[in-house]
């Protein structure tokens, strides 16, 4: 045989390299989380914030403790959870649809969540007992409805990537149109509230939303663990995966529901966040490859990094104020992506 080695790296070096990337990006995420907590429109002293963070009972200024624990920590953790959820949802969407352009947006879940929220704001609806949960519940319910629509169509025509993408894009356009209709009908002050929700902002984060979205993320990650190798096999195409013993329609259906849950859990509280679910998986794939045992955590880390980075940028762009984070996610993520496209040697898709 005339094949040459071309200086291929050894197994150990490849395995080490991708764990190093995961470690480095996790470390960077840790630093970004700290920076996000330290930075804010209140211009607090760094040492006061660190003191309030590490030893709240010993802090000299109770206002600092309140700002750090009631506002900044939930905002930062929510950014982390939403980013990680969208990163994982994005990588699974790209895997089950075999499409590099797929993201939690593709199947219309985010658009549906936006419609649910906008409709509730337009009519000023409020849930009894838990009025503060009205908009998140409506967003979650609408995203679930979009999920059932796509699944219903796929169930009738076959659970293939093509049918799901077509059904999803149709659902996306439907809910975008409905969103536009609601905005058209809304009075100016209501419209402003709707648009602010649709921008996506961490200012809506509370400890309650952190717990709910965090629990959804952890449950979904646990549900994905048994299917990691099957999802890896799916990257070879439906026929090869099936020949390896994967029940492809069942896997696609199961992961589709997990993605729906992740997306709805992420966007219901903070509003529509674009770009992260599309790009975080690509960044992860370029650096750690396609083995889902490491691609899933890497997508979560890169999603979190993009969101926390966007949260920092949203505070720095306009000192003394917080620009909605949904506006700046692409501003933070695009340079990352371009740099990797220009410098990466590995074919990632």
């Amino acid at each position, binding site marked *: *045989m*005339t*094949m040459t*080695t071309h200086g*291929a*790296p*050894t*197994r150990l*070096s*490849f395995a080490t390299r991708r764990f190093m990337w995961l470690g480095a990006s996790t470390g960077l995420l840790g630093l970004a989380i700290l920076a996000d907590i330290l930075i804010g429109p209140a211009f607090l002293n760094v040492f006061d914030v660190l003191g309030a963070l590490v030893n709240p009972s010993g802090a000299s200024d109770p206002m600092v403790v309140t700002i750090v624990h009631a506002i900044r920590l939930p905002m930062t953790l929510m950014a982390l959870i939403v980013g990680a959820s969208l990163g994982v949802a994005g990588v699974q969407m790209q895997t089950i649809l075999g499409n590099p352009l797929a993201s939690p947006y593709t199947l219309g879940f985010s658009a549906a969540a936006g419609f649910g929220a906008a409709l509730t704001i337009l009519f000023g609806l409020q849930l009894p007992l838990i009025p503060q949960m009205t908009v998140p519940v409506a967003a979650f319910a609408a995203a679930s409805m979009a999920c059932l629509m796509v699944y219903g169509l796929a169930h009738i025509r076959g659970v293939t990537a093509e049918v799901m993408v077509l059904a999803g894009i149709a659902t996306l356009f439907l809910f975008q149109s409905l969103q536009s209709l609601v905005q058209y009908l809304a009075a100016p002050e209501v419209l402003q509230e709707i648009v602010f929700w649709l921008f996506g902002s961490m200012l809506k984060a509370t400890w309650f939303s952190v717990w709910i979205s965090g629990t959804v993320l952890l449950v979904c990650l646990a549900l994905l*663990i048994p299917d*990691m*190798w*099957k999802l*890896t*096999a799916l*990257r*070879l*195409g439906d*026929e*090869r995966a*099936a*020949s*390896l*013993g*994967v029940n492809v329609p069942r896997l696609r259906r199961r992961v589709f529901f997990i993605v729906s849950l992740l997306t709805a859990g992420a966007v219901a509280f903070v509003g529509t966040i674009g770009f992260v679910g599309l790009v975080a998986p690509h960044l992860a*794939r370029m650096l750690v*490859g*396609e*083995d889902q*045992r490491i691609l899933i955590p890497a997508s979560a880390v890169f999603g979190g990094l993009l969101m926390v980075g966007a949260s920092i940028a949203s505070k720095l762009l306009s000192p003394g104020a917080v620009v909605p984070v949904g506006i700046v996610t692409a501003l933070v993520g695009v340079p990352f992506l371009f740099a990797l496209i220009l410098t990466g040697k*590995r*074919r*990632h*898709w």
Partner: protein
Amino acid sequence: MLSIENINAGYDGTAVLLAVNAQFEPGTLTAVVGPNGTGKSSLLKAMAGLIASKGAVRLGDTPLTNSERLKAIAYMPQDTGAQSSLTVLEVVLLGRLRSLGLRIGDDIREQAVAALKRFRLETFQDRAIGALSGGQRQLVFLAQSLFRGPEVLLLDEPTAALDLRHQLVVLERIVETCHASGMIAVAAMHDLTLAARFADRIVFLHDGKVAADGSPALVLTSAILEQVYRVHAEVQPGPSGALHVSPVRALNDTATS
């Protein structure tokens, strides 16, 4: 022994396989040949449980359900240019998907590398499968199939994308494995000379039915080629002693592809 009984299958209401019967002995390679669209790939997929079919597939005396076929029978599809960036080693490891967990043991990893060494591909183990040539990719997928250690291996045109050398390498490894482990191999093929040289038996499919079934010496005749392919072809022993097929001319203008 693997036996198939009255296999019927079709797509969108069109019958592709009509009551196909055949038996396959352990330790042998059987070539399934026939014109394009005659049902070769469908037969293999039906045997593997990948498409719905009627009829029975038995391994020994035990009839296999579709899900049991997926476990007992390895199927290697035609190369369709996998563009994944999965590494070669990961692709081979997937051959034992059911044994893989969060941590890959050193023993299974070493066995996967050994499967690659049979094809001198071990130095490619960290390369992306999508970055390999069609021939190299086909060898990797064969290594994956053999790594699985199947009782039955079905191969859909395993030499279609390969150069002359790799065609020989692939078929030699398949025959070696059949002889060493008793594996039953069934390969859909187009190259009748290669089939004559490497296969213990040839099954001719024509319009979804078995037109002839037997050893190459028995069934590889000008008369059967004329009946199945609508060509005039000469069949003579080659330098190695195996039969050599030389197509001479098509018998009509529409029957070739």
